[in-house]
């Protein structure tokens, strides 16, 4: 199997400077926020690659760059052999790629009928959309008669199904799922996740699955990347990661996540919070919270290295 998506040394900076005059007067430098810092990974065809990490770690940004919604500052994104950063932007692979968003309420235009929403990806290309929406609705477990309704007539889970139907409309190979279930209840979440798994099998889809919920990721993903402050701190196949987390951050995440079998668990909660991304700590970004941190961590950002199947960015991991 070859990599369908290859991300190499991806960097994305946001300019969060104050206006020019303020900078002049207050003698401030230009401020930039590095949302994605030197991230590389590959996604195999027909696999599920998951990105996990806490809020602000850059998951969505990576997804949006791959989807072509925002440009990268540096690095390469190669999709199906086409480098979307250099070669004419995302138009070349537009129809191969679709996205499902987090908020099922905001991702459907409230003024449009479900039929038009689902058919939009096809309609934009000027192709026939007759009966398409109805077919897709049934495919995602809704009824064809729902096509004439408006989004507000559906529950959150149903809306997410509509989003999935829209994503499928243009027959994509890749679907980027940005926290597709985090707004949903568990019982609905399981329905949606099952649907996604089924569709993957049926249609041979590849998912980039973004989530902060480790249990969901563990269920869905084949390979997982852990992000912290824009850096990919650890990357490994699912079972490797869960069985033998290498990076202290990954371990902290696992420990902190509430567990259904941990009644009255009394462990010390993790220290601190994600630092301000505009002024990240020097060296390894995790060092202020890291129990293992030593002097070198404060000075040097560790390079990725392979430990078995795991790629990890830590001076002390073994």
């Amino acid at each position, binding site marked *: 199997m070859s990599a369908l998506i290859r991300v190499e040394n991806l960097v994305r900076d946001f300019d969060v400077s104050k206006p020019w005059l303020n900078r002049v007067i207050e003698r401030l430098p230009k401020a930039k926020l590095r949302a994605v810092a030197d991230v590389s990974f590959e996604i195999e065809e027909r696999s599920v690659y998951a990105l996990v990490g806490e809020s602000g770690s850059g998951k969505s940004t990576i997804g949006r760059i791959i989807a072509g919604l925002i440009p990268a500052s540096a690095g390469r994104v190669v999709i199906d052999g086409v480098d979307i950063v250099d070669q004419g932007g995302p138009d070349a692979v537009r129809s191969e790629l679709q996205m499902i968003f987090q908020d099922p309420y905001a991702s459907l235009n409230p003024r449009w009928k479900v039929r038009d929403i689902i058919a939009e990806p096809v309609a934009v290309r000027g192709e026939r959309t007759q009966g398409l929406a109805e077919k897709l609705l049934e495919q995602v477990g809704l009824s064809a008669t729902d096509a004439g309704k408006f989004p507000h007539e559906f529950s*959150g889970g149903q809306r997410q199904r509509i989003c999935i139907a829209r994503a499928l409309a243009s027959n994509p190979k890749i679907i980027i799922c940005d926290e597709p279930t985090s707004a949903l209840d*568990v019982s609905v979440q399981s329905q949606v996740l099952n649907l996604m798994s089924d569709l993957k099998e049926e249609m041979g889809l590849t998912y980039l699955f973004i989530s902060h919920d480790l249990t969901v990721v563990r269920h869905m993903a084949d390979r997982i990347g852990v992000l912290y402050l824009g850096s990919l701190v650890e990357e490994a196949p699912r079972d490797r990661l869960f069985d033998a987390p290498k990076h202290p951050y990954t371990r902290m995440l696992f420990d902190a996540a509430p567990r259904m079998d941990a009644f009255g668990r009394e462990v010390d909660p993790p220290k601190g919070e994600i630092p301000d991304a505009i002024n990240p700590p020097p060296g390894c970004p995790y060092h202020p919270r890291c129990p293992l941190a030593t002097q070198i961590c404060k000075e040097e950002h560790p390079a990725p290295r392979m430990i078995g199947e795991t790629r990890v960015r830590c001076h002390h991991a073994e």
Partner: protein
Amino acid sequence: MSEPVLSVRDLVVEIPTRHGVLRPVDGVSYDIAAGEILGVVGESGAGKSMTGNAVIGLLDRPARIASGEVLLQGQPIHQLQGAALRKLRGRHMGMIFQDPLTSLNPLLTVGDQLTETIQEHLDLSASQAHERAIAALDEVGIPAARQRIDSYPHEFSGGMRQRVVIALALCAEPELIIADEPTTALDVSVQAQIIALLRRLCRERGVAVMLVTHDMGVIAEAADRVAVMYAGRLAELGPVREVVTQARHPYTAGLMASTPVASQGQKRLRQIPGAMPRLDAVPAGCAFHPRCERAQARCRQAPGPTLQACDGRAACWFPITHEQEATL
């Protein structure tokens, strides 16, 4: 056992709408003892927040308590109005909301909001109140509380803000705290911190806590007992370990099973078919019966099962017994 801090008896909340009267809370009863954390779980719209709001008297019009009782340390409070109710709030019962950013008034310093609350309820001078505010911040683990007391909410990070909210809820030393999804907006690492904090305060102060959430994991870790709500009714109520591991109500069981953790290793997750009914279309009888694989004729008849009518733990005519569970 001594008198519970909070006891809710047959609470019914009604909302008159143009499509008829809705009952987001329908016959809910439970007690919370001092120092106990009662977890309330359920899907979105199950009536968890409504129950909490009804207890503290914060129902927005047109919702209202239609029947039932709310007793705070034995005193009925569900009919209180105006000043009488206000004096209880903050002083005897506190509330924590989901989003710490929107819970704090952005234009007032944290200290202002704290001292204002303290002075409202405790007969303290301004400087005493100030000291007490610092102590409250200290207690919830805000470093350098004395310096930070004059900061504005936006100057705190998300986790710190939620600590401030907790400090605010606790600063007049109430006996009961209603925490409505206090960690949903936070990251896991911070969530763990906040849960630990809540548990510590509960233990040290003997505060009764009603912890509303829809995260089973949080409940499992934090709560002593758990109430599962479905369509405004209590589906199951019992000690947390038993409810999680040996659910008797088919809904609870399904809920537990559909979490990815429980289905570990399976290709597909267990799922409950269908969705929770909308409030204007709650089926007669057991509200869960259309989705229940065990449903029988009796389940479709009104009146539906209640905890009291059934075994006191699950509101189900045909609860799952432990043996059956094992065979599943």
